[in-house]
């Protein structure tokens, strides 16, 4: 059970406090309700580029990192399709430094030209490092485009095309900032060795004066139900053939999400999972195979990806996956197997909750989903799942007409 308290400033900023007096540290986590799904198709990669610019100096403070490091702190940030999250950890005595820094960059960035010029290059190198200069690096660009036809999950957080980042202008940057980076669109979580009254005082002092801004109302096109299976194949300079499959699944707070999460465990979580045991160990069709999903807020993708054993035909490999899915759909799983994946989930949650930083990030995320106290019922939602539900949802999700397949052929 994770305890927290919550209040809201007049400008709409939500503040959550989670105390833990066993640590000498404090964590300040600011989540902005903006991700790459909020970009337009001709300016993708912007939410992520923006995350970089948030370190390029704010209106009153030329450099974000330096004062934080001087206060003995460290920080980082990440952008997903759904959100952008900034977090720092520092000795609890110096917590006001974090309030000062985070509030100033929420007030306004410096919008320096140099910062934009440099970060465009840095992000281009990040793009190259992770997506261009790696075998199979382009898979998720292709796979997202195949799987989503209208929803903005069809592009990756890094962006659809390098040119979008290269063409970003200061005007774009300013517009984006004042649209999304307002108190009304943000969640502040303060955790660790902190006193509630002090956090309230500091939040009022530093964040209170920031203009509220306009609430960003998201209206994204819903991905229509997929009616027939889609297939794509590419040939590239990679050593092994690979196979990628996705199926549409429900969004983060839907019952179906939790069932799909357990289905991914049954199929691909760990060495005793069905795909690994049957297709890597017994039939030796794949040298590696995984099943996972992206945990997205809006309806997401259940995914299987694997590398084929040299010499195995693509059709044989696909047939192997199909048989594993057929079993899951046609024969009820045992209570013991369900218990196994529930136990694994319980374990993962317990280990994640070891660190204050991780608890702070989770609270912010669940607050974004609607209510931070969802954090405390997460395990119950998994525990409530039945073998019948596993079967019912595996029939619904792992339907042929709901599937997207990318056959990735090696040219050598």
């Amino acid at each position, binding site marked *: 059970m994770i305890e927290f308290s919550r209040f809201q400033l007049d400008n709409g900023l939500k503040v959550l406090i989670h105390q833990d007096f066993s640590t000498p540290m404090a964590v300040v986590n600011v989540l902005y309700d903006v991700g790459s799904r909020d970009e337009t198709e001709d300016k993708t990669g912007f939410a992520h580029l923006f995350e970089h610019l948030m370190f390029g100096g704010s209106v009153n403070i030329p450099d974000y990192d330096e004062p934080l490091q001087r206060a003995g702190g460290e920080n980082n940030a990440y952008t997903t399709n759904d959100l952008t999250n900034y977090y720092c950890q520092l*000795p609890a005595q110096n917590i006001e430094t974090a309030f000062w820094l985070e509030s100033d960059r929420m007030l306004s960035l410096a919008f320096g030209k140099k910062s934009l010029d440099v970060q465009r290059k840095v992000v281009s190198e990040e793009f190259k490092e992770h997506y261009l200069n790696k075998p199979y690096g382009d898979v998720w660009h292709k796979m997202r485009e195949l799987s989503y036809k209208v929803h903005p999950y069809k592009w990756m957080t890094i962006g659809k095309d390098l040119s979008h980042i290269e063409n970003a202008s200061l005007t774009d940057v300013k517009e984006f900032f004042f649209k999304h980076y307002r108190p009304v669109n943000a969640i502040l979580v303060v955790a660790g060795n902190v006193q509630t009254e002090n956090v309230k005082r500091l939040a009022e002092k530093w964040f209170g004066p920031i203009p509220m801004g306009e609430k960003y109302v998201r209206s994204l096109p819903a991905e229509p139900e997929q009616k027939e299976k889609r297939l794509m194949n590419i040939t590239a300079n990679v050593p092994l053939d690979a196979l990628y499959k996705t199926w549409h699944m429900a969004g983060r707070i839907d019952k179906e999400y939790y069932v799909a999460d357990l289905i991914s465990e049954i199929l691909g979580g760990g060495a005793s999972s069905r795909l690994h045991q049957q297709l890597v160990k017994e039939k030796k069709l794949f040298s590696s195979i995984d099943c996972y999903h992206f945990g997205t807020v809006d309806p997401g993708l259940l995914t299987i990806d694997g590398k084929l054993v040299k010499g195995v035909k693509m059709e044989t490999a696909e047939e192997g996956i199909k048989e594993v899915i057929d079993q899951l759909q046609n024969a009820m799983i045992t209570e013991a197997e369900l218990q196994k994946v529930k136990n694994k989930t319980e374990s993962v949650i317990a280990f994640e909750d070891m660190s204050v930083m991780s608890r702070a990030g989770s609270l912010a995320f669940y607050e974004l989903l609607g209510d931070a106290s969802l954090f405390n019922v997460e395990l119950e939602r998994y525990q409530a799942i039945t073998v019948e539900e596993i079967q019912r949802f595996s029939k619904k999700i792992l339907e042929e007409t709901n599937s997207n397949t990318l056959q990735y052929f090696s040219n050598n």
Partner: protein
Amino acid sequence: MLNRTTAPPIADAVDFKLELKPPSLFTLDNGVPVYTFNAGPQEVLQLEFVFYAGNWYEEQNVLAASTNFLLKNGTSKKSAYEINEDLEFYGAYFNRHCYNETATITLHCLNKYLADLMPLITEVITDAAFPEEEIATYKQNQKQRLQVNLQKCDFIANRLIDEHLFGFHHPYGRYSKMEDYDAIEREQLRKFYERFYTHGKCIIFAAGKLPADFDQLLNMHFGKLPFDQNSVQEVKYNIKPAEEKKYNIVNDSNGVQGAIRIGRPFFNRKHPDFPKAQVLNNIFGGYFGSRLMSNIREDKGYTYGIHSYIQNHLQLSAWMISTEAGRDVCEATIKEVYHEMQRLREEPVTEEELHLVKNYMIGTILGDLDGPFQVIARWKNYILNGLDSEYFYNSMNVIRNITAPEIQELAQQYLNPESFYELVVV
């Protein structure tokens, strides 16, 4: 009116009194030392077995790593599948890693299932069967994985720089080749396993919210096993660095980035300059605000990240600079790395920068000491290196007291381009 231009007052982290709480130590009936650290907010624990079974002790390439990987793939009583099923049923995570001197088996589990898992761990440590079919699958899949990795410039660069620094015959410089996997046979795996695991030297580290009967439980299950704390015989290797210092390799003619590695041999933790060098390393390339990051990423935008670090080897180490940079700016990046070395040699760091780095280092160490897994990880590193809490307190004092002239002197001694091996892999 709120003054946003002036930083709020801070407590200087350099003034903090950091405490590294010692672990508890007890010995199993068979002489195996067990270090425990009991703390944590959750009913979970980590149990790690360290064996002196790294590639230092192998007589055939990849044998140590293969033994470590395969030891849980079947015993005389259970198939690999049954073992995995058992472990995963209890929500446990069973990992193994092979390093240079040591190889480990680590269990992460919920406290309530610890007693159920113990017999299985014993079985894996004493009765691994290395079934032929498992070996065949392992070889095939490792070779495929290697094939994919060989297309990555960073992977190639990491292997080659170690080879250039230490020589391929040295355990720190050696790496896997396709034919090494082909040569692995059951009999050698079994022998290595019996000698270095079942009858080998073992040290146990545990952390988390440990159950009250933890010591007895451990002794009951592992106290009678035939570990031999005196079984490790000293093996010596001499390093044989490459004759040439600079290399340019084209691995992928269409590559858009180059992996740059610049490294020099360095001492291990026992050398008196080591703690000081860590401060210099921080300034140079050890944190986000470092000279290398500020210049090469934040000013020039040549790379997504550039870091320097001192390798954590037991015998001797290397001081390394590592980055992936745009293919057309690799040369410029290398030039800037040497330029930053030169600045550190020629100009003393300002008090302001030194003060920041000291606060940053102490602050992050304070954060690192937070949580039982982090504390036991630090102790494990110290114990394997033959160090004690004095090393910790001495390092803290070095960080607090080191001066700008000392930093400069250190840079003049160690950050000389002529001592560095340099490698670009496109």
